């Protein structure tokens, strides 16, 4: 870039554990040229895998088996390449867990890849997928302009009293063990959108952000625009119950299962990350949306749903105490946005914490940012579709501008 304001098209790849969102964003205008999402990638669900591809308001839905993320990306590239007038200059990847190596966006080089390789075990569901996608892009397109943007940077501000684990000090020091927190891009985005929507200054607000996805989910306590706690920990395994991740459990169980089932550490990790959560209990699907479809006629579905809701409520209660009551409660990501019954059940009997939902507004919500709280609710309850891709593009563009300034 020769000029600080040169237009640049960034292909943002936002890889979830079972999805791959993509956007071609023209910066600095933040104009979305192409957007789409591959859903139900590499998982067992009741519905077929799809790619939804949108350009100039025209939507195409392609049903196709998507055995893994590389297959999905190949198909996405084919779709993008069909658009002759749209080219992208840079690929930016959301990278979940950079360990203690990076706390700001980084251009991918050979030495960066070497460091990223060391982080693969830290987020075994996400990091290997993105790492392979970066390598895939490099191999297929000899594409050198790739950036990695990290989901952990927003949580740098979590104070030691919430980030420190009750483990031996020497281990903490040696391995950098602490609550790192995840979904930072999403939590930051919805926090900024909420303050903009309510015309409030973020430096005065106490916010609880619920990022409830079909893959991973986390809750974040935000004070004065800064993350003060996040339900995920050193890895994205801690916290809420997720599609295939167990979330918070008694650690004694891990040793007990290993002993009883003769499991190696790798096998135990695989069970906790990939065979637990919604899938573990519901068995036929890992998608809470499938569970919700069955809650009226399937006892097990009802129990899974109740388990999920209870855990979200517990974190909202805890974070309300940390924040000394919240000003804003946000629901985001696919489950947070698409499932009114989930929001209803989570907000039920939460008047003590100042949370009171307006049922009519909740059920009539459709698509954009909206306030679904009752007029007498002390806490404003907002539904905000997340846009991690815009945050990723912003961060990469800021990084590029810094590099230009340095030149």
């Amino acid at each position, binding site marked *: 870039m020769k000029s600080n304001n040169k237009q640049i098209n960034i292909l943002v790849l936002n890889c979830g554990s079972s999805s791959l969102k993509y956007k071609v964003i023209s910066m600095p205008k933040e104009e979305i040229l192409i957007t789409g999402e591959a859903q139900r990638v590499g998982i067992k669900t009741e519905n077929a895998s799809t790619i939804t591809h949108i350009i100039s308001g025209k939507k195409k839905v392609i049903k196709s088996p998507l055995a893994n993320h590389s297959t999905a990306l190949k198909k996405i590239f084919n779709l993008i390449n069909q658009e002759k007038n749209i080219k992208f200059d840079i690929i930016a990847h959301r990278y979940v867990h950079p360990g203690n190596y990076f706390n700001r966006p980084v251009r991918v080089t050979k030495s960066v890849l070497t460091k990223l390789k060391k982080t693969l075990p830290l987020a075994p569901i996400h990091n290997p997928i993105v790492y392979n996608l970066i390598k895939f892009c490099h191999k297929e397109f000899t594409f050198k302009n790739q950036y990695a943007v990290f989901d952990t940077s927003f949580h740098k501000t979590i104070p030691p009293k919430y980030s420190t684990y009750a483990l031996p000090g020497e281990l903490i020091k040696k391995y950098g063990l602490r609550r790192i927190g995840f979904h930072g891009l999403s939590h930051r985005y919805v926090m900024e959108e909420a303050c903009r929507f309510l015309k409030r200054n973020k430096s005065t607000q106490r916010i609880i952000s619920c990022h409830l996805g079909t893959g991973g989910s986390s809750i974040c306590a935000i004070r004065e625009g800064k993350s003060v706690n996040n339900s995920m920990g050193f890895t994205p395994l801690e916290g809420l119950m*997720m599609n295939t991740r167990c979330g918070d459990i008694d650690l004694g169980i891990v040793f007990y299962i290993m002993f009883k*089932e003769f499991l190696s550490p790798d096998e135990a990790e695989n069970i906790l990350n990939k*065979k637990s959560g919604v899938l573990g*209990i519901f068995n036929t699907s890992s998608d809470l949306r499938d569970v919700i479809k069955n809650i009226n006629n399937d006892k097990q579905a009802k129990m899974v749903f*109740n388990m999920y809701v209870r855990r979200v409520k517990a974190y909202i209660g805890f974070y309300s105490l940390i924040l000394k009551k919240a000003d804003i409660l946000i629901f985001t990501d696919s489950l947070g946005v698409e499932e009114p019954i989930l929001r209803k059940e989570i907000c039920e009997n939460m008047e003590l914490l100042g949370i009171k939902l307006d049922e009519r507004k909740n059920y009539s919500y459709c698509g954009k940012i909206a306030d679904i709280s009752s007029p007498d609710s002390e806490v404003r309850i907002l539904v905000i579709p997340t846009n991690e891709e815009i945050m990723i593009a912003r961060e990469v563009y800021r990084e590029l501008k810094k590099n230009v300034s340095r030149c």
Partner: protein
Amino acid sequence: MFLVVDCDLKKLKIWSFQESRKGLSVKFFTEDLDELTDVANLQRYIYKISGRVNIKAISFRILFGGDYFKKAELVNSSFLRKFEKLTEFFPFYIPTMSALLKKFLKIFKQIPLIAFFETAFFTKLPNEERYYALPFEYHKKIGIKKWGFHGIFHEANAQILPHNYKIISIVIENRSLYAQFQEINHFQLA
């Protein structure tokens, strides 16, 4: 006199409760289990504690009752058969406790022996609280669920207050744990 017996893998701990004109006197005794390997040794030890006073009942604090024991129960042979089925959960503790209970049964045939379980108070936790988000087969096959502990403490705390009270009960020993109760039906346990 009433005795309350607690034991771990190494020590036997006994509290004696004796009412007199002066009020209730409580005494604590402890002995290595190795010193009480046979019935005669145990009998001598208990009689040393009770002196010539009649023992009216002996209760036992038992750490784990699984799904079999939802309330305090009289110790007898059918109790022991059920109790020993829990061995797979605590392969050292359950046999040790079972052996001790058998010795007490031999010595005190006419005195009620009552077992109180630390887990009994939590057997009515709602399923969504009891089950972990793990493969469901583990719950069925190897009994992975939230059993809860310190139930005797928490139940005692809950009974101090009227039933319509909502209570948060905190036990702080070396480990800490809290439980919330709603009309004595507890709904969440740390």
